[in-house]
């Protein structure tokens, strides 16, 4: 499983990054080396080993269904790069 430039192009769309041709080349070269390095995990026998997604094994952590204060709208929208008095704004998403 060696990483190709085509993989990198596909991933750059999945990850929503625009990369120039030069960046794609460099990224392919650098990622290929890292991916090559992590491949060493294949030699580890993980037969019957439970995956460990969390550092602590805790479960059933809940909150009560109790109202908490929401942000005032201006505070919620304050950091938006483009907004009007009520909403965030983006280029038309029709047909997306």
């Amino acid at each position: 499983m060696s990483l190709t430039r085509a993989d990198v192009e596909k991933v750059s769309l999945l990850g929503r990054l625009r990369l120039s041709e030069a960046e794609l080349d460099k990224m392919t070269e650098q990622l290929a080396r890292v991916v090559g390095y992590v491949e060493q995990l294949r030699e580890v026998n993980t037969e019957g080993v439970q995956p460990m997604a969390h550092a602590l094994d805790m479960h059933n952590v809940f909150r009560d269904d109790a109202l908490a204060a929401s942000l005032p709208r201006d505070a919620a929208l304050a950091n938006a790069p483009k907004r009007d008095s009520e909403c965030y704004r983006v280029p038309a998403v029709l047909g997306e």
Partner: protein
Amino acid sequence: MTARSAAELIADLNARKVSSAELTKGYLDQIAKHDGRVKAFLLVDPAAALARAKEIDDRRAAGKPVGKLGGLPVAIKDVICTQGVRTTCASRMLENFVPPYDATVVTKLKSADAVLIGKTNMDEFAMGGSTENSAYFKTTNPWDTSRVPGGSSGGAAACLAAGMAPLSIGTDTGGSIRQPAALCSVTGLKPTYGRVSRYGLVAFASSLDQIGPLGRSAEDCAVLLEVLAGHDPRDSTSANLPVPEYSKTVNQPLAGLKLGLVREYFGAGLDAEIEAAVREAVKVYQSLGATVKEVSMPHSKYGIATYYIIAPSEASSNLARYDGVHYGYRTEEKAMLAELAAEQQKLEAAKDQKKLADLDTPLVRLYRQTRAEGFGPEVKRRIMLGTYTLSAGYYDAYYLKALKVRRLIRGDYDQAFEQVDFVVGPTTPSPAFKIGEKSSDPLAMYLEDLYTVTANLAGIGGISIPCGFTKSGLPIGLQMQCRPFDEERLLRAAAMYQRATDWHTKRPKLG
């Protein structure tokens, strides 16, 4: 004055030997004098800090209660949200982000009457080990300003070494507290996962991130951890356990201490001077009555590979929210749309149906252009890597496999801790390197985390304490790792060493 330990300074404050305003002013002067070269701070607001200090002094003067930190200044890594104060993660993406809320640790610091003296520099989104990945400027190592302070909490460690703050808060995802502490000759603790709330810590890798204290000594770290630690109902992964009074017990020595030297840590790649210093430190412990035995952690050598799958995978998801819609940077829209339209016309003229079909929609281009401009190269690399390792067809081979090896690494620790109290070794394989020395080679940079990532993968605690210097005068760190939630004894063990040595009291000569 700025040479005194945090514990001493709090005593002085409460005894009114010094006021918080005087103390704060003293550190602000140090910053004015030295930060031009060290560049540890991204943001300092002297007026606000002094106002806060005065408010605490007045309260004390009025005989009203004052919190545990009693007006002591504390520096905060800029990856932790501060209400109304810009929090950038050293990224262009968040250049103008002003959080509408405080991180839980910030709330705790405020109610303990800390004076927030500034936000410290770091690698962008905590991704890096040298603070060279800051989008704003590189922090230098006060011991040799041509060298890196380590990272990602480089500013947090450098500001302590340069006497610009008595305490600071860092975060550690793969060594980001311990490694800069080692490279700057300060003490840094990465608590057990879940010991300190992550609420308000801008996520890099959620299952590995942990906030922790940096200080001049284990005692200072104990004082600060006591304030930071505790269960938080706003963090589902924070442990619901009582918080020991670390500051009360830190100076009580431990009898019958059992230390484990990890065989695998002392192989190729470890700098000879560092190995010598670490073995010396172990002798000190033996002279204090500790018994030492060799332990084996057969999977530790897979730590880096495991870490560089799990951390980027989580990061690629955690950083998806930076899309230029709800907060943060957005590319200049008109120019972006114009360029897209031009591309479309060219393709139409060329009747290139294939490329036309693949052409970004305006929204997709908005995302891609915004993220291309808002993120630096290392962040992009990790997003790409993590997106790849989670993508269809690769998940099992990379991400799932790494989760299983992670369990085995944890198993190595559990076995070691059946035989010994603490696992001991070097914090880093080499001392501080030259700025720019490794930036061209990501993999070489990643390998620097060799000894620190496994504690994050296993979720256990670890501390780095100064244990000497190279001939060329570069600091060396000793790492000790503990059972989950055994910070109380870890700090006591570290303090034992620091009472027997004076490495941690050495300060760099700043021009």
